[in-house]
């Protein structure tokens, strides 16, 4: 084992290298490109034995990834934002074929307006595809999750592809100390992939990805994908147990931070969780019993574990770093659904949207969340979904609207905005 300073992108490349993947179809996009650059360099230098192919788009890339996995190869690829959406159609195909592979998404806000910093509308758009989804919060977790993801994906109770998410910039370009496990240790944990259901052998031809006409046939296979996904809840915990035994680091579907005796719970995902942890630490210092949960496994959704963690708590606030226009926060719906039938569920559950396009979530915003939780507990009135947006943010946008010529009569209604 060596410990090195690695970016999230390098950690991802190391995950693929240690998993001894056979094939890497690739297409560049910021902020993911460093992953495939690193892999292509290693393959070129001969330190990694895999085939690397530059594709003409993400659609071709995911097609190549899925079809290669259907021949029995272990496949790795990475994309980001618009790239994931461009290949979107093929995500459903790959899950329908029931072939395992690992795809990294480096989160970046979706256009328009175009930006470079992260939120999770990109990755959550793949929520219903059947891909298993795990969201990472540190560079170490990215590497570790890739190793775990192949075990999960290739388990015959699952046989589904896995999407791993990391935030652009906050992880992708940020270096922190990462333990790179030894190859021997990894081979103890992750055996060679040896598929029984989908492979390529000239003496043993099979048809894959066939057409079905008729709803009963279609329903059968679709529901199998759902059941396979649900199996991940068990498989993940087994794999995490093995991982802890061999590497000493433990991961659960939901990460708990200062949850014992917590009354006020904030739920977040991905790298911004660190800001939540800092806020919770500060609240605790001031005598407030605050705690935090980070949802790591997003699909399948760990409803049972969530219930166990939240039953008996006073107030919960969900910060969705995504937005479903016309509805609100995407994960809020999953969370409230999981709790609906619990007699001992938290008294109030509040919904916030924060960190869109990488906007900071400041301590003032966390303060506001705690205040709102307190208010709701007292009055019993729970507010609609709120955007975390400060006076400082408003000043900035007003300034830019001015520059964009939206102030002087005629076109703009700036007066309305000013008050």
């Amino acid at each position, binding site marked *: 084992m060596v410990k090195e300073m690695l970016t999230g992108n390098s950690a991802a490349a190391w995950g693929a290298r240690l998993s001894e993947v056979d094939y890497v179809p690739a297409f560049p996009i910021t902020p993911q490109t460093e992953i495939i650059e690193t892999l292509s360099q290693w393959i070129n230098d001969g330190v990694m034995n895999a085939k690397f192919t530059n594709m003409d788009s993400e659609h071709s890339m995911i097609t190549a990834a899925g079809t290669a996995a259907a021949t029995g190869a272990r496949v790795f690829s990475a994309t980001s934002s618009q790239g994931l959406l461009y290949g979107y159609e093929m995500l459903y195909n790959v899950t329908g074929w029931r072939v395992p592979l690992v795809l990294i998404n480096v989160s970046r806000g979706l256009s328009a307006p175009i930006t470079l910093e992260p939120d999770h509308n990109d990755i959550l758009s793949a929520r219903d595809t059947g891909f298993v989804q795990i969201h990472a919060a540190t560079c170490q977790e990215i590497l570790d999750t890739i190793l775990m993801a192949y075990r999960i994906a290739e388990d015959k109770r699952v046989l589904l592809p896995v999407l791993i998410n990391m935030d652009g910039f906050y992880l992708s*370009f940020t270096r*922190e100390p990462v333990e790179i496990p030894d190859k021997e240790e990894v081979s103890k944990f992750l055996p060679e992939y040896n598929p029984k259901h989908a492979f390529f052998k000239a003496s043993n031809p099979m048809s894959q990805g066939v057409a079905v006409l008729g709803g009963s046939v279609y329903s059968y296979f679709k529901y199998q994908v759902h059941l396979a996904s649900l199996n991940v809840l068990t498989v993940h915990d087994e794999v995490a147990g093995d991982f802890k035994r061999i590497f000493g680091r433990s991961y659960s579907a939901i990460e708990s931070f200062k949850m014992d005796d917590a009354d006020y719970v904030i739920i977040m995902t991905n790298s911004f969780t*660190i800001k939540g942890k800092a806020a919770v630490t500060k609240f605790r210092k001031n005598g407030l019993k605050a705690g935090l949960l980070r949802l790591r496994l997003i699909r399948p959704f760990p409803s049972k574990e969530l219930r166990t963690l939240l039953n008996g708590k006073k107030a919960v606030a969900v910060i969705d770093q995504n937005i479903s226009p016309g509805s609100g926060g995407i994960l809020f719906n999953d969370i409230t659904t999981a709790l609906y039938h619990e007699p001992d569920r938290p008294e109030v559950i509040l919904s916030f949207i924060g960190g869109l396009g990488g906007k900071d979530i400041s301590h003032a915003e966390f303060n506001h969340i705690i205040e709102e939780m307190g208010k709701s507990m007292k009055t019993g009135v729970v507010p609609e979904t*709120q955007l975390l947006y400060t006076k400082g943010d408003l000043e900035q946008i007003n300034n830019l*609207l001015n520059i964009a010529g*939206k102030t002087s009569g005629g*076109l703009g*209604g700036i007066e309305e905005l000013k008050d």
Partner: protein
Amino acid sequence: MKQSTNEMIKRIRFHGRGGQGMKTASRIVGTASFLEGFFVQDSPLYGAERRGAPMVAFTRLSKEPILERGIIVSPDINMIADETLLNDQTANVFQGTWEGTVTIVNTHYPASHVRNVYGIVGEIVTLDITEIALNVIGESVLSSTAAAVVCKLTGMITESSLEEAVTRELSSINLKKELVEKNVQAALTCFDRIPETHPHYFESIKEDKKDEIVRLEYADPCLGSPSVYAKGTTKLKKTGNWRLFKPVIDHEKCSRCYTCFVYCPHSCISIDEEGYPQIDYDNCKGCLICFCECPKKVISKDREVRTW
């Protein structure tokens, strides 16, 4: 007011221009801190710009797990590796500095002079690291020298960790052994030139700034959609400060062929009433295409010095 704290974290911000080596500097400090056994993070902030444009990078080191990510608004150590940035509104190099900040400026001026001109709060240190880099390395690449100054100012990093970090980081970007050794030498020279400091921690004022949460209302689409009505806003984004070299036309010898006018990718060359090409230095990015394309070779390139 400066208030001591037991929060053991150092937040370091590096200001420079693309190509000066500040990303690498942040990484050298990161690796040196890592070798000392601290919790560490380092990251550059990339914009859409390129060589010569102002850029920032960050390093955090701490005795405890770091509960922060992303940009550093309020630095404990603020490295300004290019003195021309002091005057640059857009670079905003003093953002969030306070009594507890130690600012380092790469200049031959004494600290007192910089303080008087810019009214810098907190401690200030000056050292002409460009000169040291030029003398020892032979190039004005500032990664190892800037990192060395910062390492010393943390009071928490030893000379041997710095040396190892410079070697690791520069070897990883495939610098020749000889050049790496020169960088190590330059770094150690800078390390020696900065007096010994003891680490001190002050409560950051950052958190005290209260901000209010506001509620966004529906806005008329003329406001609420990302369109721009003002004309010619590109002009507001001056790109003249990206230049490392300045093209200068010798009008005496110019034949008025207009090749430069045609080739300038940023439309920074206009033709005056007498038919001579004139360069708009507010926006010329210093790409030197005009310099290369002029058939008469009457455009020269001057090293950019923005005096203050």
